[in-house]
């Protein structure tokens, strides 16, 4: 928004600004409604359906799609895959903004958001998986912030502080992977408490494993997806190294995603076998489960493999987008579609348009902030004064 003005652009009325501006104005109006009239005024939540789109999409999908940060920094700093180095900063930035938005969105969903620190400062409900998720997300947001700030410090010219934080890279990476393993899996484990409400095809004692493994596929795909969008809109910001390495990143991450999805497919099948739920596959819910399993797990695994073999970057990028969509489908299935499946249709939940608009508003805020940052800070290029000191 303001960045065009700062760059001395002739007009503010670019299509991007008009659309995002409209969404943000609607979002602000809905925010006022939410915090003056209560959840009931803007959502379709009921006593039977206590969690809706803001948990299913903003929290579950948001956290899964922000997994690119830990996946990329682990590949580069722990596994020594230096040829992916230029992918770290965009991935960490996407992750940081993703988690920041998750917390922002949660403040709309919980009844008394100013009490969000209560689990830490008042009483610790350590038997709750949500306690673990809250703790990990709070810590990981801090880790991502520290991983991101060197870029901001290069922009602001704070050399000494930057040096100090860059030294922590390895420790932050390890901490990031540990925290991500915990809360990515725990978001699945949250639903272990409700075997009587979640459809047996989706309910499995492997839920935490499913969520963790699929978050890796989500993170890898999100890096490819984000970079293909960035190449379209921010190519002028990218330095030669970023452009040169990008093909390798797309191929390498595509290969990894293909294998992770294949593993995920196998354990999902084992989940069905473990519960002996084969018979349910023929029911309407079973068919929808098969759409998810075959269409959004097996298919992208295969397409990634073909794309990597043929060095077909276009196919890999489309597959990344498809996999991201598959993660959305999976998380919404578990939290909304297959949850409360036994209730009569009159008591089922469908999001109110204001819930959808609020989620769109939150994603839009993320895109605007991402744009603000990449047009100013060294994200897609190395700062000339800090070359080769990584």
């Amino acid at each position, binding site marked *: 928004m303001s960045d065009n003005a700062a760059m001395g652009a002739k007009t503010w009325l670019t299509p991007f600004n008009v659309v995002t501006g409209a969404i943000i104005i609607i979002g602000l109006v809905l925010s006022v409604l*939410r*915090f*003056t*009239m*209560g*959840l*009931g*005024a803007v*959502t379709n*939540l*009921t*006593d*039977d359906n*206590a*969690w809706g789109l803001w948990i299913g999409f903003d929290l579950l999908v948001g956290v899964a799609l922000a997994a690119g940060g830990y996946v990329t920094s*682990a590949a580069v*700093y*722990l*596994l*020594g895959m230096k040829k992916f180095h230029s992918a770290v900063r965009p991935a960490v930035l996407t992750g940081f903004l993703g988690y920041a938005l998750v917390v922002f969105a949660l403040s709309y*969903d*919980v*009844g*008394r*958001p100013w*009490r*969000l620190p*209560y*689990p830490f400062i*008042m*009483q*610790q*409900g350590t*038997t*709750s*998986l*949500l*306690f*673990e998720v*809250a703790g990990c997300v709070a810590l990981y947001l801090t880790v991502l912030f520290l991983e991101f700030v060197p870029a901001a410090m290069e922009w602001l010219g704070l050399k000494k502080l930057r040096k100090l934080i860059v030294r922590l890279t*390895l420790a932050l990476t*390890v901490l990031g*992977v*540990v925290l991500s*393993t*915990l809360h990515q*899996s*725990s978001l699945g*484990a*949250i639903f*272990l*408490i*409700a*075997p*009587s*409400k979640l459809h047996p095809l989706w309910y499995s*004692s492997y839920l*935490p494993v499913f969520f963790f493994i699929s978050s890796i596929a989500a993170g890898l795909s999100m890096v490819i997806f984000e970079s293909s969008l960035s190449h379209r809109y921010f190519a002028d910001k990218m330095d030669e190294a970023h452009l040169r390495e990008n093909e390798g990143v797309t191929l390498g991450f595509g290969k990894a995603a293909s294998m992770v999805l294949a593993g995920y497919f196998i354990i999902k099948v084992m989940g069905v076998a473990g519960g002996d739920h084969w018979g349910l596959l023929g029911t309407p819910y079973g068919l929808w489960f098969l759409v998810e399993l075959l269409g959004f797990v097996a298919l992208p695994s295969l397409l990634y493999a073909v794309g990597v073999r043929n060095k077909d970057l276009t196919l890999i990028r489309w597959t990344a987008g498809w996999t991201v969509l598959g993660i959305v489908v999976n998380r919404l299935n578990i939290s909304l579609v297959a949850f409360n499946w036994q209730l009569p249709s009159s008591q089922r939940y469908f999001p109110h348009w204001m819930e959808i608009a609020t989620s769109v508003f939150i994603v839009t805020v993320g895109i605007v902030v991402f744009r603000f940052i990449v047009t100013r800070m060294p994200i897609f290029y190395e700062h000339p004064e800090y070359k080769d000191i990584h």
Partner: protein
Amino acid sequence: MSISRRKFLGWIGAAGVGSTLGKSAFAGGGKHFEGHPDSFGVLHDTTLCVGCRSCEAACAKENALPVPDKPFTDLSVLQEKRRTSPTAYTVVNKFDIPGRKTPVFVKKQCNHCLEPACASVCFVRAFEKTAQGPVIYDESVCVGCRYCMVACPFEIPTYEYDKALEPRVMKCTMCHPRVMRGEVPACVEACPKEALIFGKREDLINIARDRIRKYPERYVDHIYGENEMGGTSWLYLSAVPFHEIGMREDLGVTPAPELTSGALSAVPVVVGLWPVFLMGLFAISKRKEAVSREEMEARVQSVSALAEAKLAAAMETAQKEKTAAVAKEVQKALESAAQSRTKEEI
């Protein structure tokens, strides 16, 4: 109910002491928690319930809940299935069972689980299973995440969605303040047919068993709540299978905390071992780098040594050739000098 106030207060004290002496509630492990000793419960004999809604009225009055549009004496509300709501901690539902002349009425409210799902999932411990039996809620710490509502297998907790600033989770407290004062819950007191009996849970189970034994034709042979979800403080008797009166029979006997204890126990393992594993991976990748660097250096060295040797050999040959050439030239010069001298002499 014929319980003297004195006897009752004695029980309260016993329950309190019992809870401090009793075993603690471990979710995992070999221990089986059977509820706080001497804790209270309510037995709801649905065969005695006439659907008069007196319990609903008493509950609303006791908990200062808003007066509903239709008075509690209006039995037309029984035509539709109701669930608990922020303004009704308890509701009575009517079930017409095919083949039975009279409908069955069932009162619904919090079952006060022995190991409650709501308490186990609350990340601020806003719920507490008291030693006396009631599961109570502390609104002063509640964040409003509503995980309790997601977790409850009986779909009991409700939420004040219309409140912007201080929405609360609303549910039956088994009249905890009354119980602590030595009174029975308001609904139990109001019941004109003794379809609700308040007492020690262990005694209630015995009473229920007695009734089933004495009148086997009247009851199905099951006490709902004895083992469901690890057992509840509220117990039910019925003349028809429980699923026919809106109660789920597929909940199992596993206490709710056990459903997540496995996942929770993985946390310390990940925290403890993941850094070791990750640093191991890091060390391997570092070592690979170091080894490949060393190998590269060694190769460069051997190549350069070879090159040097070749160069030295070449130099030597060149030197030899040079010396030979010089010697040859000297020889030539001497020879030509000797020749010219000979010529001069001639």
